[in-house]
């Protein structure tokens, strides 16, 4: 009897925790959607901001966020994957490498504004990229690098030893084994890391604050050296600057909705690729 009551309380707590999570998630989605939909229109998606950001659209910010996100993946995926391959397959298993791994994991906990300052000092100033998509993408890629590395690391480690042995036993070299067996087998796990990275890169404001984003521009970026508008920063700008807070607030909701949809689309693409790979041979 007592065990049964304990079990009921346990179940209740589990369901309550789930309900609270869904409640928060649901209300965020609800308020953003309900308010965002009001300003959503074809013009909002395709036009530049007009009348001191109270009318027109946010197209330059959409384009900018897209470039920054894809740019950051372009840098961080190869770098992170190769780093993880080195750590799993080649590095000696000693204390220095362990410290290295721990440092990489800790990097994931560094506040994003610190990455922003780093990007300003290194990419904008030292390398002379200026405030640009290039500098912003590089900064974001360093921000999500730890996520990509640790997801890739876990995925590579999880590849069964028996598959590696099968490959070696057929006379494959270590590199052939990694390239043909280990990485393809780990790919779904690696893509999970990429998906999380995309969400983070698209939504971050602080790292692009000093490295890529501009408050207002009526032009689209023409090269990686252009500065650009970006959705998260645009939301921040709308809520803190300007002279028409009420109209701006609605546009900010619209931006938030678009940002959500954008991340959803990019993630859906990555999830589709992952499932395709996973289902291919299971």
């Amino acid at each position, binding site marked *: 009897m007592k065990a049964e009551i304990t079990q009921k309380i346990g179940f209740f707590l589990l369901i309550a925790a789930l309900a609270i999570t869904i409640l928060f998630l649901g209300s965020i989605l609800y308020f953003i959607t309900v308010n965002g939909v009001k300003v959503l229109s074809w013009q909002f998606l395709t036009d530049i901001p007009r009348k001191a950001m109270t009318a027109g659209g946010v197209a330059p910010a959409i384009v900018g966020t897209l470039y920054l996100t894809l740019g950051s993946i372009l840098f961080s995926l190869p770098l992170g994957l190769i780093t993880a391959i080195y750590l799993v397959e080649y590095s000696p298993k000693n204390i220095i490498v362990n410290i290295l791994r721990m440092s990489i994991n800790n990097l994931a906990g560094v506040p994003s504004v610190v990455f922003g300052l780093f990007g300003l000092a290194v990419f904008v100033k030292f390398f002379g990229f200026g405030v640009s998509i290039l500098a912003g993408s590089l900064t974001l890629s360093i921000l999500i690098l730890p996520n990509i590395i640790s997801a890739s690391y876990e995925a590579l480690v999880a590849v069964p030893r028996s598959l590696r042995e099968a490959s070696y*036993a057929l006379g494959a070299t270590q590199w052939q084994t990694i390239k043909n067996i280990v990485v393809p*087998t780990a790919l779904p796990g690696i893509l999970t890391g990429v998906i999380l990275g995309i969400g983070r890169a698209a939504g971050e404001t602080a790292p692009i604050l000093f490295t890529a984003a501009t408050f207002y521009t009526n032009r689209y970026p023409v090269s990686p050296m252009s500065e650009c508008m970006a959705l998260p920063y645009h939301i921040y700008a709308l809520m803190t600057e300007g002279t028409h807070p009420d109209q701006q607030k609605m546009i900010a909701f619209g931006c938030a909705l678009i940002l959500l949809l954008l991340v959803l689309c990019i993630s859906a693409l990555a999830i589709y690729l992952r499932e395709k790979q996973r289902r291919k041979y299971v």
Partner: protein
Amino acid sequence: MSDEIRIKVEGVNFFYGLKHALIDVNMNIYKNMVTAMIGPSGCGKSTFIRLINRMNDLVAHTTLKGKVLLDGKNIFDPDVDVVELRRKVGMVFQKPNPFPKSIFENMCYGLQINGITDQKILYEKTETALRKAALWDEVKDRLSDSALRLSGGQQQRLCIARCLVVEPEVILFDEPCASLDPISTRKIEDLIVELKKDYTILVVTHNMQQAARISSKAAFFLLGELIEFGNTEDIFTNPRDKRTEDYVSGRFG
């Protein structure tokens, strides 16, 4: 049956860290014969056959003393190309381990890493090897299916075919039937007997009856020592050592 010695093991001692896993092992492996390694768990029989294709190289902190001569050449000499050695000495593992790829891709892998890309050759060699492994009829219509959709017994025969396709001369079987049902086991056993015509075969097995059914020579290992080595028949019916007798008659192990 020939008396030609293919592999000569001379004074082999092997250590995992400080653990002395093989103690002064001397043995001859004959051409076109099935040699069975028997003994209780942890006796060193798997360690022993993993020496022959240098699979133990992948394990950290191991030490080897002694020689393993393949056709008179010590495979642990510094000038031996381990990749080359493993193409000559194939291996089938305890658990079926097909790659998470299609059946055809599993078969082609060993050839492709050797630089064979001609689709026609790949297909021909695949068919030949799958026929040898008695799997062709079951999979010929679905070569592009995932290898993981095959049953356990089929997967293991695919692993054997995958090993045969690169045309090795020696094949090591590390408890190939450990995870299979009796019918699949029977098929694999028949296959091993069939293969000895063309290959030199070493089989690790836990199963006494299996060793008796398929092997001509048998080696009994106990706690890292080779206790007795001889004709399988003698090992089972007329063992020289008391410990061998106790083991094969089921008194321990």
